[in-house]
């Protein structure tokens, strides 16, 4: 018990002292996750939109593939990207490995299917009559798409938030592609893994608390938006 209470009290003190190391780690985490969520959404939302909205050959197969990719473990993605950007491989000269960019690449692969499938789900939930109504009122394809996008916007925001929640809590890719370099690629989760290895739990517990609070907040917002779509 002493271990837990000691760690917990020190962790709280650490958080409220706005320790620069903690701040730097939290900042790196938020920044990297934010950037990967941004790019994944930039690609995933239109992709999901096109798949849900369009009718073309292989649509079902594509959706099945995306759903399969949802189950892709982070270590597999890490290994895959690693094998491309390691110094000895094709893209080695770009010196990407163990940088924030490398983490972003891996994380985009991780959450692109999440954004796309949740966008597809959000669009599919939208009543078919919206499309028909927009068309009969004279809307062209782009304008009709805008209507559907507007009606599905809460669902799409929920998709983006879910993706962010996934990357902020992800450890495999950040560790394998970022390498946990202090001040550069050390994120909340990799720092926690490291602190455990060191046998020092205070920083780990502090980061754990911050991560939980963040996740809680993210889920609150997610819930809010999900509720809005159903109403």
């Amino acid at each position, binding site marked *: 018990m*002493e*271990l837990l209470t*000691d760690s917990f*009290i*020190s962790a709280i*003190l*650490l958080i409220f002292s706005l*320790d620069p*190391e903690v701040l730097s780690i939290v900042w790196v985490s938020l920044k990297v996750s934010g950037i990967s969520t941004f790019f994944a959404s930039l690609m995933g939302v239109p992709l999901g939109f096109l798949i849900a909205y369009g009718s073309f050959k292989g649509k079902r197969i594509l959706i099945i593939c995306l759903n399969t990719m949802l189950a892709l473990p982070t270590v597999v993605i890490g290994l895959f990207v690693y094998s491309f950007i*390691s*110094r*000895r491989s094709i893209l080695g000269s770009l010196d990407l*490995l*163990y940088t924030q960019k490398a983490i972003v690449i891996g994380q985009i692969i991780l959450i692109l299917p999440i954004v796309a499938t949740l966008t597809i789900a959000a669009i599919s939930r939208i009543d078919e009559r919206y499309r028909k109504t927009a068309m009969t009122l004279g809307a062209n394809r782009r304008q009709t798409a805008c209507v559907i996008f507007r009606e599905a916007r809460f669902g799409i925001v929920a998709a983006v938030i879910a993706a962010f929640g996934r990357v902020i809590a992800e450890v495999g890719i950040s*560790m394998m592609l970022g*390498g*946990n*370099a*202090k*001040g*550069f690629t*050390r994120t909340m989760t990799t*720092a926690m893994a*490291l602190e*455990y*290895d*060191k*046998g*020092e739990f*205070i*920083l780990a517990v502090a980061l754990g608390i911050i991560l939980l609070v963040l996740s809680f907040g993210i889920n609150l917002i997610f819930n809010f938006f999900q509720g809005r779509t159903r109403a």
Partner: protein
Amino acid sequence: MKRRNLILKVILPVIAILLIYGVALGEDKIIKMATTTSTQASGLLDILLPELEKDTGIRVKVFAKGTGAAIRDGIDGNVDVIFVHAKEREEKFVKEGYGTKRYAVMHNDFVILGPLDDPAHIQGQSDAAAALAGIAKAEALFISRGDDSGTHTKEQALWKISGIPLEVRKTEILKKGKKTEICFTFPENSMAWYISIGQGMGKIIIFADEKQAYTLSDRGTYIKYKYGRKESIDLEIMCEGDSFLNNPYGVIPVNPARHPHVKHELAEKFAGWLISPKAQSLIANYRLMGNQLFYPWNF
């Protein structure tokens, strides 16, 4: 009725078997040991532990971690014995009453690794501290364990005698309700070239090789990555042989006065066996890719 049958016919026998199995296991001579990644990764334990079981019947569950975590396991009573390489901290561990006695087992040495083109021009340097100073002056990339391990402890000690201006970061923590400080020492204004990644030795070597950087490693792990893998690394030894790079390993049974549940008797027996002539000669004769990794203490 059906549910009752299920309980009688399936669940109860399973519980019974588990109980019997558990008791049987409990009577077995098994101890838990926290050790550093270097002893396990080098393959030494694979040679020693089967012989130990043959001689004494003791089986060892091994938890390989950084030295800091291994010592922490000892402090918390998670293990019966620790086998690590950070002499000062081991002595402190005994002095504070967590362990009964430190037995010196063996030693090996650290080496400073670097890329072939050697931007800091330290190849052949026999003074380890001067080599680090050279890296700092050239601001060549250096990868640090940064994980409070034995290697990290040694690295910080080397920086302290290198004459380079240093920064010390102190973090206050609570231990048993008392405030304690932990310190991290690293070169001043080194943001651009000093990278602390807080991972195991193997990861550090891969990282350093990827970034073509310098690092401090134990010889065993280096040999394993240089010659023991299909895809070799490019890093070379830049500095070796300094007496300061010596790396002693000790084994310490956890104090039963602190943690009454530990199997102290078996742990003592294990430690005694490690320093016996037989184990010591096993250590002396162990070779990895034709290289001697460990030198027994009493040989």
